[in-house]
């Protein structure tokens, strides 16, 4: 669990993982008993290219404090070229969010293969730490969805 020690803030993190590499990577990290934070919610997608910018925005809208998209390494896409398109698309989206003044660190793209269980766990830990340090998402949240519970309530452990 990644918690901001000073504020007790536990971020909600959404990770979109492609079915063929990153989701398998997450699986591997699990079978190898590598810890990654429980506040990372994984959403499996057939390919990183399936992720439309709206998915990212809606994740933020529905209460995510950080959104990370994981796919196969460029060149290794199960569908040959999907992640190349993802790369351009997400670069532009990240840039646009930054341009709107939304903390650029809240969105990240990482390439994680099916063999990289350790990398998956490490990436998630570092991302969760970064978001915990950044604090709650206040610039791209839907106020109607804001949790009424006090911030920092620790969700059930793994």
């Amino acid at each position, binding site marked *: 669990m990644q918690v901001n020690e000073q504020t007790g803030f536990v971020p909600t993190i959404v990770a979109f993982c492609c079915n063929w590499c990153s989701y398998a990577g997450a699986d591997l990290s699990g079978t190898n008993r590598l810890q990654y934070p429980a506040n990372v919610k994984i959403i499996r997608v057939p390919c990183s290219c399936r992720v439309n910018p709206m998915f990212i925005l809606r994740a933020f809208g529905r209460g995510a404090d950080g959104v990370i998209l994981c796919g196969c390494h460029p060149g290794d896409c199960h569908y040959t070229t999907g992640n190349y398109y993802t790369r351009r698309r997400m670069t532009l989206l990240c840039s646009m969010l930054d341009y709107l003044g939304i903390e650029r*660190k809240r969105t990240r793209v990482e390439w994680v293969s099916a063999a990289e269980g350790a990398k998956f766990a490490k990436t998630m830990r570092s991302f969760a730490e970064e978001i915990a340090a950044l604090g709650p998402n206040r*610039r791209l*949240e839907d106020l109607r969805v804001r949790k009424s519970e006090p911030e920092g309530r620790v969700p059930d452990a793994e």
Partner: protein
Amino acid sequence: MRNKLVERAKELLADGTVTRVIGWKRGEFSYDVTPAVFETAEELEKDFVYDGFCGANVSKYLIRESAKEGKILAFLKPCDAFSFNQLLAEHRIRRENVYAVGIPCEGMADIGKIRSAGIDGVTGIREEGEEFVLSTLYGEERIAKKDALAERCLVCKSKRHPVYDELIGEEGEDLPDDARFEAVDKLEKMTAEERFQFWRGELSRCIRCNACRNVCPACTCENCVFDNPDSGLSQKAAADPFEESMYHIIRAFHVAGRCTDCGECSRVCPENIPLHLLNRKFIKDIDELYGAYRAGENAENKNPLVSFREEDAEPSVVHERGRA
């Protein structure tokens, strides 16, 4: 110029080259022209106008018009021609049903700018050299044309027509791009907090009238994601600031790589939100990251968002920015 266009349109109607003409129709005052289809010489004589207030881009109407029987003559300003070409690239217009006539544009005035210069009650406008002479309810006023020009025209990208069947007047040239991205540059240099406050201030005025989307020559989906009840996004009013941001990011994103920067979105915004600054940010990023690209330049170009190079920058390039 207006008379020249009318004469030519009448000839083309008379010799059967075209059956209809799309252009601009006179309004109540001098500034409130409406895009219109003319079918006869009489209609053209009576109501056709072409002057410094014909900012409306007629290219989007050609989707509908070119699907009809018979050829239509379209008068295209350089901006309109870029949009037209982009629509051709997307196979949205039946080229064989359009007779495209490129026409020169000296920049279009913005009645909003005239009003914000403190001139109200404008009932008539005439051009006199470098000035507009305005008859108003409260006496005659003058304004330098450059002070009345729309922002998009002050930083005009091109006086050239990338596509046409016939040209009236002399062909112009591309203009240097520096000024066009100045405002984007300025925003990029601000802190994230400043940018956030800037955009909150702008987007919070949005009334979700959808004018920016509906006027956009690049927004041509039959059923927009924002109108589709199954998308979960089809809220008609921005009930929360999140929805304002969401709508405007997605609107700009959906036309990224296809936007020709015609500036119609900002022109029509009733709240005067500088929406073109979102589109221009995408244009600037695409140019910088994937090489200079101009949507509408030709009908064969491949949209940078549906192409790639193996050595493309990683998304982390955004995180590195401004670190140095």
